[in-house]
C-alpha cells in the first residue's frame, strides 16, 4: 500500500528520519526489509553499525519518505546509537514477543530516547515475531489483512496474563510477553504500540503508517512545499485499529491537527 504513492496526484512529500532500535535478533532489519521490499529472508546479514534504507509512505494528504536507519542490535553497538538517533523524528523500538528480556531492553531504549533524542520524537513500540504465537500463527495466510489481524490481536489481549503459561504448555505458543503488559507500558509512556510479524507481514505497514500519521506537521521538512488537500488522518480500512492502538494523546492530537491544513 505504501508503494502506491504514484496512484494519486502529486502530494506534498516530506522526509522523516526514523531509527530502529532494539535487542539483537528481534527482527529490526526484517521489519525494514518487509516494509521496504515486502520481502523476508531467513538469514539476514547482521547489521554493521547501521543500514540505511528509504521507503515512501503515502497518506491521503501527503507522502512521507522514510529515511530508515536500521541499527545493529548487539549490546556493544549501543554506544553508537546516539549517532543514529540524532535528529530522528521517529523511532521504532522493537522487541520480540517470545523474549521477555527484549522488552526490558526496549524499555531502556524508550527511556534513552525520551531523554536524549530530539524532543517530540514519535516512538512506536513494536512486538515482533507474532507469527510464533498462537494468535499470530492463525493469521499467517492472511498477512496484512487488517480485519483479521485486529481480531487476533484482540485474542492476544484476552489470552494474556495468567493464562500465558498454560497456553504455552498446551498449544506450544511461544509468546512470553503478553499484549496487555506491553500495552499498558506503551500507554504509560505515550507510545504507539503494535504487534507485528515481519515474516508474515502482519501489521508491518500499519506501524509505519501510524508513525507517518503521528508525525507533527510542524516537524516536517516539506520537499515540494505544502500543497492543498484535507482529508482523514487514517487510511480508511484501518481506522478501526488505529483507535485500538494506543496513540499517545499528544501524538493523536498533533496528527489530526497536522492534516487540517
Amino acid at each position, binding site marked *: 500500500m505504501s508503494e502506491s504513492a504514484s496512484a494519486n496526484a502529486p502530494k506534498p512529500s516530506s522526509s522523516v528520519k526514523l531509527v530502529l532500535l532494539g535487542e539483537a535478533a528481534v527482527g529490526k532489519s526484517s521489519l525494514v526489509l518487509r516494509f521496504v521490499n515486502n520481502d523476508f529472508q531467513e538469514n539476514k546479514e547482521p547489521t554493521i553499525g547501521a543500514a*540505511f534504507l528509504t521507503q515512501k509512505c503515502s497518506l491521503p494528504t501527503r507522502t512521507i519518505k522514510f529515511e530508515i536507519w536500521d541499527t545493529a542490535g548487539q549490546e556493544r553497538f549501543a554506544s553508537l546509537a*546516539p549517532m543514529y538517533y540524532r535528529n530522528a523524528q521517529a523511532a521504532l523500538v522493537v522487541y520480540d514477543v517470545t523474549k521477555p528480556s527484549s522488552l526490558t531492553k526496549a524499555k531502556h531504549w524508550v527511556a534513552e530516547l525520551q531523554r536524549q533524542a530530539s524532543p517530540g520524537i514519535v516512538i512506536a513500540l513494536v512486538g515482533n515475531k507474532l507469527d510464533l504465537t498462537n494468535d499470530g500463527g492463525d493469521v499467517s495466510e492472511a498477512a496484512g489483512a487488517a480485519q483479521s489481524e485486529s481480531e487476533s490481536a484482540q485474542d492476544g489481549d484476552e489470552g494474556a496474563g495468567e493464562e500465558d503459561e498454560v497456553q504455552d504448555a498446551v498449544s506450544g505458543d511461544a509468546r512470553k510477553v503478553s499484549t496487555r503488559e506491553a500495552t499498558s507500558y506503551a500507554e504509560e509512556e505515550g507510545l504507539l504500540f503494535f504487534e507485528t510479524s515481519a515474516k508474515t507481514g502482519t501489521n508491518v505497514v500499519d506501524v509505519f503508517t501510524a508513525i507517518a500519521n503521528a508525525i507533527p506537521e510542524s516537524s516536517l521538512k516539506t520537499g515540494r512545499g505544502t500543497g492543498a488537500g484535507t482529508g482523514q488522518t487514517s487510511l480508511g480500512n484501518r481506522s478501526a485499529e488505529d483507535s485500538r492502538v494506543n496513540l499517545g494523546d499528544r501524538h493523536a492530537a498533533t496528527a489530526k491537527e497536522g492534516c487540517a491544513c
Partner: protein
Amino acid sequence: MIPWSSFVQKAQSLIDPANFNIPALSSPDHNPSKASLFRQQFRLPDSQNPLQEITADLVLPLPNSSTNQGDGSRRIDRAGNTYTGRLHLSERFICFSTQPTSFVPSATASASTTWTGQTHGTGPSGNGFILPLSCIRRVERLHSASHVFSLALTTWNGLLNKQQEPNFVPQRLILQLVGSRQACERFCDTLKKGLREGMKEVDSLRTVVSDCYSEYLLSGAKGKGQDGNEADTRQPPDAGLGLIFRYPGDARKLRDRSKMRLWGEYFRGKRTSIFSLIVFPTSDRYPPENGRNAMLIRQPTFHKLIRVGLPNRLRGEIWELTSGSLFLRLQSPMLYQQTLAKFDGQESLAIDEIEKDLNRSLPEYPGFQSEEGIGRLRRVLTAYSWIDPEIGYCQAMNIVVAALLIYMSEAQAFFLLSALCDRLLPGYYSTTMYGTLLDQKVFESLVEKTMPVLWDHLTKSDVQLSVVSLPWFLSLYINSMPLVFAFRVLDVFFLEGPKVLFQVGLAILRVNGEELLETQDDGSFISVLKSYFSRLDESAHPRSENPKLRAITRFQELMVVAFKEFSGITHSTITETREKHKGAVLENIETFAKRTSIRNLGPESKRLSVDDLGTIYDRFYETLYQWEQRQKVIEEETRRQERKNSQRLSMLAPPADTQVGRVGLGPSPTHMDYDAFREFLAATSKWAVADSPGPSTKESSSGKSALWANRRQPADHEFMQRLYRKWATNPEEGLNLQNVVNGLARLKGSPDIMNNINYFFDLYDDSGNGQVDREGILKISEALLFLSRRGFEGTITATPSVENLNSMADRDHAENSLTTDEKFLGSVSAFIRRCFEYADPSHPEHQKTDQQDATAEATEKLDSFAIGDDDEEEDLIDVDDAKPTNSPAPDVATQLAKSTTAELVSHNQNHSTSESANPALDPNNPLHITLPTFRMVILADELLEQFFESYFPQSFHLSDHPHPAALAASSTMSSNLTTFSNLGSIRSPGLAAGSAPIAGASGGIVPPGKGLRGVLDNIVSDGIRMAAEVKKRMDEAQRDLERNALGREEDEDDEDDEDYPRRENTATAIPGGIPSWGAGAYGADTERRSVVRDADRDLLEGAEVLGGGKEERNSLLDGKDDVNHAPRKVSSSAASAKGGGSPTVRDGEVISKLVEFES
C-alpha cells in the same frame, strides 16, 4: 652502493645514545614505552623486549657470487644488495630495519615514534628482516678488516622440509655491525644467549612453517611455480576455503599465475621470466635468495609485490607474515587446537551471538553456504571468544574472519584475528567499541583537514560522515567493496597498518568529491558511494583517447589516490589525532554508559536521587579501576621479581603499558571484591577509614599492604564484612553496581528509623531465624562503637543532663560533643546490658556443662563489668568506682578511658558483689534477642535512636555532602583523628619520662586545640576495646574452663601492659603538655616520613611478629594518626610482647631503633 641517506643515518645512529641501551620496562606514563614501540614496529608478540640495538649493514650476497661461502669483504661489497639500518635483538627475535628508529626510553611519544612517519610503502618494518632466532642455524664471525665486525647468519631456510629441495643453497646473510668493539661484543653475547634458547624452538618452527604454502611451493614439486595437481608426494597445506570453493574473482583477470611466479622468484632469488625483467629495476633484476615465510627478507620488491595484489595461495601466508600473527603462532603453535579442546562443549553468551551470525557471514561466497565453511568460521570465532573473553564476539568479526578463512587455515585466521584485535584495530571490537568511535572521529578530522570544502558541505547538509564510514573501518571494507578489491586493501593494510584504512577512506571521498558535493542528505550521500563501490572494476577514464588511461580501473585509481595523494597520512598522523580526540570520545561513551546504567538500575534505585546514583556510579568505578590498577602494579612487581618467568603467560594479554582502565575503554570489571569494597566504603564513610596505615595482619600476610601505600587506607571491620555479604548476591563473585546501589538505597533511601533498625538487625541475624545470639549482641555493640568512633558529624546530640555525667553538662560546645560521644559509649554499654536482660533463652538443653566453679568464675567476671547491678545502676563503664568524677573534663575523659581498662582488669577488686549472676551471661546458657527486643532496646535509648535515625544512614556520604574523599589521608585527617599523644599531653607525664625526647621526635603531635577531639576518640576506641574484651572473655570462659584464677590474672596483666605503656610512652612525647616545638617538628617531618613509611613498614612488620596475635585487636584501636603511627605501632606491639622486664624499657629500645632508621 650505499646511498647518501644511509650514510647520514649511520652517522646519526653512531651519535645516538640508544646504542648503549638497557632494556627499559614499560613506564607508567602516558607515552608508549620503548618496548611497545619496538613490538609495534616489528609486529612482535608482547613477550618481546628490545635487548640490544646497534647500527649495521645488511649485505645480501648474490647467489652466484657467494655460494662458496666466500668471506672476503671486498667480494661481498661487490655483490648483492646492501642496506644500512638498525639491528635489534629481543629475547627471541633478531630484526633489521632500514626504517629509522629511536626507542630512547626518555623520548616523548612523538619523538619515539619517528618510524611512524613516511614509510614509502614498506610498512613500519621497512626493508630488512624479522627473524625468529630459532630460524638461525649458524652464526659465524667473519674474518675481515679489523674495523668491521661481521657476522654471517645461516638460516634453516629450505631445510625444514623432509625432502631435500633441488639446487638447495643455504640462505646466508651478512651483517656488519657498526659500533664500538664493546657494543658489538655485547650484542653478540646477547645474541648467543638468545640463540641457545632459540634452538629449542626449531620444532615449533617446523610445525608452523609446514602450514605455509611457500614451503610447499618451493619444495620442488613445483619447481616452475605452476599450479598443477601433482599431489602424489604430499598435500598442499591448507590455504583457506579458496582451495575448495575457488578464490573470489577471476584468476586470469587477477593475473594470479604470474603473481605466483614472481613470488616464487622472489623467494628463490632467481629471475626467470621476461616479465619480471621488464617490471623490475636493474638493481632488483638478479636478486639474492630472499628466503620464505619466517625467514623471508624484505627488499623493495617484496613491498611492490604486495602492492600489486597477492596471489591467492600465498595471500594468507603473507598476511600472516606482515601482520606479525605468524610470530604469535610460532610462540604457541598449538594454542588454537588446545583452546578448542579445552572449552569443548561449553557455552557462553558469545557463542550464542556467534551462532546467530554464522549463516549470515559473507553468504554470497559459496564456502559459507556449506557446512565446511560455517564450521570453520564457528570454530575460529568461538576459540577467539574464549581466549579473549573481554572482547568475546562482536558483530563484524564474523565478516572479517569469514574473509580471512577464504585464504588461510583456521589456526592462521585465529592468530591473525588476535593480531587484529590487539594491535591493528585496537578497541574496535571491545564492548564499548571505543576504538571504532575514536577512529571515526579521527577520520572526520582528517577529512576536515584534507578536504575542507567537502567537509563544509557535509556539515551544512547535516550529513554525518561517520554514519557512512563506520562500516568501512569496522569490517575493513569487506562488505562495502566487492571482495576482490577489499582483499587488495587488506594486502596493504596488513603490511602498513591502520593508516591504510584512513588513506583509502579519504581517497574514496576525494574521488567522488564532486558528486558528493551535490548530495543533500544521508540517503543520497550513501547511494553515491554505493554505486561507486559497485563500479570499482570499471575504467576510471572510459572516454579517454589513451588506451593506457582507459585501462586503468577505478580501483587502481583509488589506490593511487590513497597512497600517493594521501601519502602524508602516516602512522604518526593517526596516532596524534587519536590522542587528541581520545578524551572526548571516551567521555561521550562514559556519559552514555553512566546514563544508561543508572537509568537501568531498577526500581530500588529510585529511592536515591540521580545525583546520589551518579556519585555511587563514579565512585564504584573509580574504586574498581584504581584497585585493578594497583593490583596490576603489584603483579608487575612480582613478575619482575620472578625473573625466570619473563615470558608473559598469554601471548594475547594486553600490552603491559595499558593505561588505567576506564569505562569507555570497554570490558570493564563489573564486580568488586571485599577489599575493593572496603576502598569504596572508605571513600563513602568516615568510619570506614582505617585508623592507622599500618597493615593489618591479614594484609601483611598476603602482601596486600603495598596496595594502600601512602593512601587512605580502609579499615577492616567485621561490620564491613557483614555489609559486604549482605549486599552481595553472590559474595564469591563480588558486588556489582546494582548490589551497591540496592544496598545504599535500603540504607539511605528511606528515612525510616524502623527500616534502619531492622536492617541492622538483619545484618547480624546469621541464622536468618530472626534471632541474634549473645555473640551477635556483642558484635553489634562492637559495630556501634566502630561506626561511631569518628564522632557523629553533628547528627546526634544528647539532650544535656539526661545521663548521669552531669558534672560536664554545661561546658562549652566542644565539651558538649564530648559528652555526646561519651554518652554514646554509655548507651552502647546500656545496650549490651539491656539486651542481656531482655534476651530470651534458647536451647536450654545446652545447659549440661561441667566445671561448675569455672563457670561461676566466668560469670562473675562478666558480671563485674557487664552488669550494672551496683548501686545506681550506672552504665558499666562508669567511672565512679575507680576515680572521682569531679575532675575537669579532659581529665575525666582520660581517666574514664583508663579506668575502663582498669576495671576490666581488676574485676576482682570491685563489683564482686554481683552474686546474683544473671543467667543470661552464662555462656552455657545460650540466649538470643529477637527483632522486637532489639528495636525496643534501641528505642529505649535516645542516642541509639538518633544513631539509627540519622547518623547511620547519613554516615554514607553520597552527593549530598561534598564527600570526604578529599580527606584522603591528608591533613584534614590527621588533624581530625586522634592520637594517644593528645591523651598524653593531658595526662601528667609521670611514668616513662625517660623516653620523652624520642617520642617527641617521632611526631605524634597534633596541633593544640584538637586535643579534645582526640580524647573523645580515645574514649570511643577504648569502648571498642571493651566490647572486644567482653567478647574475648566470653570466649575464654567457654574455652578455658579449667583455668585457675591466678593464671587468668597473669593473662590479664598482659593485656594491661598492652594499654598502659602505650599511653605512657606517647604521653612522654610532650613532657610539659605543651606541644609547640613538637608541632614544628611535625610539619617538617611529614614529608620525610611519608618517604620513609614504606621502609618503616618492614620494620614494623618485624615488630608485629613480636606482637603476634595481638595485632588484630590493635587494629580496632583508634587514635592512630597517619603521622605518628610508627611509634605507636612499635610501642603497642612491644608492649604486647610477653615477658617480664619493664615495658617502658623495651619501648625505648624499639623506638630508638626506629628513630635510627628514620634519621
